[in-house]
């Protein structure tokens, strides 16, 4: 049982297997999306697949290093890492390079990095550290605000840099806070806000306010003996009505036209011809895959470049086209398996820090999965964030690897009781 003490013996190999499968599938899908008749070598560095391979090698090295480092390092330096990374993210505004209209890249040697990708694991470390602190109770408003602030600061920095997609990802920490005891009504309010937002864009506003009024009256009738409750319902109705109008205002005045279009496409409204191109082509690609797919490297939508951002944001459409419903099922199954495994690992942690970090990892991965696949099949708005482990992109692969392997390292040391 000598191996029990070694890292390899304690490592959760099931998670690593799922990780490896997803990365490999991603690599093959990237090759399918980018290869052409002139360059058929999957390792060629002129292709995204070749560069992705280099990043895969780098990820293995990084993962190895992360597993060697003692978990106490992460716990001790959670806040310094958080501050350092955020400063790095801020620095791109001075020393950064512009790629595709976003000035959030740093060039190191021949490689380009997006520091905002690294913010994910840094924020995860800091949030876990905070929630694991003595006397911190998320149900107290004093502590809530501090937790919210830890999350809000990176959101603001990334959003100001114009990367709205990466900023939205941090919303996923709500799930972590929920697990730590944040009141359920936050989730209920969150869900209601989303539903109300959609409704106020789809349904005529006055009609919506009227329907809500009717509903409120009905509830008030049943609660007529409880004056306090009646007042509360009236207050909620008023707030909801005001919100419905402000959503409409924000939609028309605050959002940029292309953002408006993305939402309109999703709501099934008419948009100017061609504006719904991405999503249309992605759906055609996936739909034309049928039950069993067109076969590897046989996707016409993919090979002939009808779907834009094929190797990055829309990688799922390539898999859907070439491997059909069966392939989609496998991908969703692998992710679902990974999420459940990670939740299981998180729950078995004895230290709160490790458990919270496990939830951070799961929430971030799940949120990316939700938006990216949802976008490709037309049920989520077009937000340009990668599908973890699968999409092409060195920064994202590296950041997801770091995120995951720190947790695996924490898991190996779960018996060394810590707070």
């Amino acid at each position, binding site marked *: 049982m000598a191996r029990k003490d070694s890292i390899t013996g304690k490592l959760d190999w099931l998670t690593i297997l799922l990780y490896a499968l997803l990365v490999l599938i991603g690599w093959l899908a990237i090759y399918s999306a980018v290869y052409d008749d002139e360059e058929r070598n999957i390792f060629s560095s002129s292709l995204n697949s070749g560069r992705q391979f280099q990043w895969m090698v780098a990820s293995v090295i990084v993962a190895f290093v992360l597993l060697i480092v003692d978990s106490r390092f992460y716990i001790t330096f959670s806040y310094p890492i958080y501050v350092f990374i955020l400063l790095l993210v801020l620095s791109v505004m001075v020393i950064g390079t512009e790629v595709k209209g976003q000035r959030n890249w740093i060039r190191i040697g021949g490689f380009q990095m997006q520091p905002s990708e690294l913010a994910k694991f840094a924020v995860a470390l800091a949030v876990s550290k905070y929630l694991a602190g003595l006397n911190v109770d998320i149900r107290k408003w004093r502590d809530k605000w501090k937790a919210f602030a830890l999350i809000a600061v990176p959101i603001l920095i990334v959003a100001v840099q114009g990367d709205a997609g990466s900023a939205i990802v941090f919303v996923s920490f709500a*799930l972590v806070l929920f*697990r730590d005891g944040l009141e359920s009504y936050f989730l209920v309010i969150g869900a209601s806000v989303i539903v109300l937002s959609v409704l106020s864009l789809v349904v005529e506003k006055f009609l919506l306010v009227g329907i809500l009024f009717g509903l409120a009256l009905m509830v008030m009738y049943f609660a007529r003996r409880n004056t306090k409750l009646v007042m509360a319902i009236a207050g909620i109705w008023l707030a909801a009505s005001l919100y419905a109008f402000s959503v409409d205002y924000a939609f028309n005045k605050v959002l940029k036209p292309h953002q408006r279009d993305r939402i309109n496409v999703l709501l099934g409204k008419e948009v100017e011809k061609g504006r719904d191109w991405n999503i249309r082509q992605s759906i055609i690609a996936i*739909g034309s895959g049928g039950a069993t797919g067109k076969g590897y490297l046989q996707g016409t939508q993919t090979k002939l470049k009808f779907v834009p951002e094929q190797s990055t944001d829309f990688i799922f459409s390539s898999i859907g*086209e070439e491997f059909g419903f069966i392939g989609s099922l496998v991908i*969703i199954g692998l992710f679902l398996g990974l*999420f459940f495994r990670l939740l299981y690992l998180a729950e078995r942690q004895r230290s709160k820090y490790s458990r919270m970090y496990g939830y951070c990892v799961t929430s971030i991965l799940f949120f990316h999965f939700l938006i990216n696949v949802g976008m490709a099949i037309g*049920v989520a708005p077009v937000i340009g964030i990668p599908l973890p482990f699968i999409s092409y992109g060195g920064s994202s692969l590296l950041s997801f690897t770091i995120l995951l392997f720190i947790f695996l390292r924490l898991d190996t040391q779960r018996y060394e009781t810590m707070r």
Partner: protein
Amino acid sequence: MSSKDLFKNRYRVIQIIISAFALVFLLRLLYLQVIDRKYDAMAKNNAIKEVDIYPTRGLVYDRNGELIVYNEAIYDLMVIPRQAKNADTTKLCELLNITKEDFLKRFEEMKKQRGYSTYKPNVFVKQLSLKDYSRLQEYLYLFPGFYGQVRTVRKYPHRVAATILGDIGEVDDKQIDASGGYYKPGDYVGKSGIEKVYEKELGGRRGKKFVYVDVHNREMGRFRDGEYDTLAIAGDNVISTLDILLQEYGEQLMQNKKGSIVAIEPKTGEILAMVSSPGYDPNLLCGAVRGNNFKQLLRDTLLPLYSRPTLATYPPGSSFKPVVGLIALTEGVQGVDYLVPCSGVYFFAGLTLHCSHRHPSAGNIQYALAQSCNPYFWQSFRNTIENRKYKDIHDIYGKWVAYCNSFGLGIKTGIDLPYESSGNIPSLKYFDKVYGKTGWHSSTIISLGIGQGEVLTTPLQMANIFACIANKGYWITPHVVKKITDPVTNKDVTHPYEKHESLIAKEFFDPVIEGLHMVVEAGTARSARVEGISLCGKTGTAQNPHGDNHSMFAAFAPKEDPKIAIAVVVENGGYGSAYAAPIATLMVEKYLNDTIQTKRLPLEKRMMEANLLSKYGVSTNKSAEMKIEEED
């Protein structure tokens, strides 16, 4: 609920949230990929494109196997804008002979075109001649993104017979709609002449190939290795009835004169030559210069684009007299030896009509034709119309019109060219309308008897009358195409042309032919007599209220075994014997003997040099001076 239970509970809630979203995705995917099958077709529409393969257009030969229309390679200079960066524009402009502004303007115009893409080849310069292109080709490697694409244009080596051969041009919207999707904008089709009428045969059949295209519409390989592709079928070759050398000779004779020559082989109805003057070089309407030249030709007051032989109508004058005589003879109202005294004046129903020539009274139809005696044919016409055998004038006049129609008059002959006038034989209805049902008599319409008044014929119809007389009673639908040949199998397709019998009794043709022979031997066209050729003809002078009379002559030869029937009209040429008769005899002599007798060469020279342009109010024939693209 204890705190521990709460957390246990939340673990479950989070599992449920994740599972719920995964389920939504699976249902959505099930719908997209398994239930709704429309996306397959949409993906195919995206990626598979039909590309047309154009066949080569058929060639046209004359009756002796001489090539008269063929295809010549020219080049479109194409550019793929995305690849055309860093080109040495100064050098390219120099090679193309354009200015730098012009160069940039072309790029701007290209961008405005429908379906413009920087990835796709665009036409930069249309239709460069082989000479211009070969000069450019040596340097083309200097200009990435530019390349030459070979196309073909029509070439007409003999530069004559423009209105018969016709031209090709871009298909118009009406034709596209009528073709049921076969033609596409930018396709070339015949616009006039043989090119138009035989479009189906000459045009061949387009082939198709199916290719994959990428999002920029670039071809990316064949679909299913060409399983569904079809080959283009080359156009058939057309063998024309024209004798291109005779045609050339006719156009030379007619230069600087407005008018027509129509020569028909009587036995077959084949058109040997059909001159429309002034003509133009058919090459003017080929290639890049087409648009400008067409506009210029359209503006020319001499109407070079107008096909005079089939469209221009003239009162036939005396050339019509044989028909009037033949009808009277067939109707039995007079015999061959019928006599009409002619004192130069003809009194009838209070009218005093004059004969155009002084001559002894005609005692038979031969002599009447030879002297072109007006009173004789007035009398013949009157005899026909006043025939008591018939109930009233409507009855007999209707029959008279039918006789004319049986010569191809007042109706379209049915020639295989796109535009044809039916001329005019006034109808019963017309006279009833003008004079009232009972208001007209033989005296009212007497001028018809000498081919004046409302009767109008095209030069083609005139030639056709003489073909019918030469055949002693029938004519074949005149035509310009003999047969169609498949260039691959060498199989010929000929379709028979209709034979039309005239209503004239056969026995009366001999005396009339004798009379027409006398016209040339001893009558009004004595000057047109050609030694060694027994010609039968009739002069005509069409009265022209707008200027000098039109000179006309119609004939056939040889008398015993007619090989050519011909009609010539020279507008404002005066008497028939002045221009029309000499030109007709020169044509006949050229056709029958291949050469002109030495003693007639001065006549030939005089005819070729005769210039009537001043009579048409112009000093030069602009269309003859127009330039085509420089060759070699």
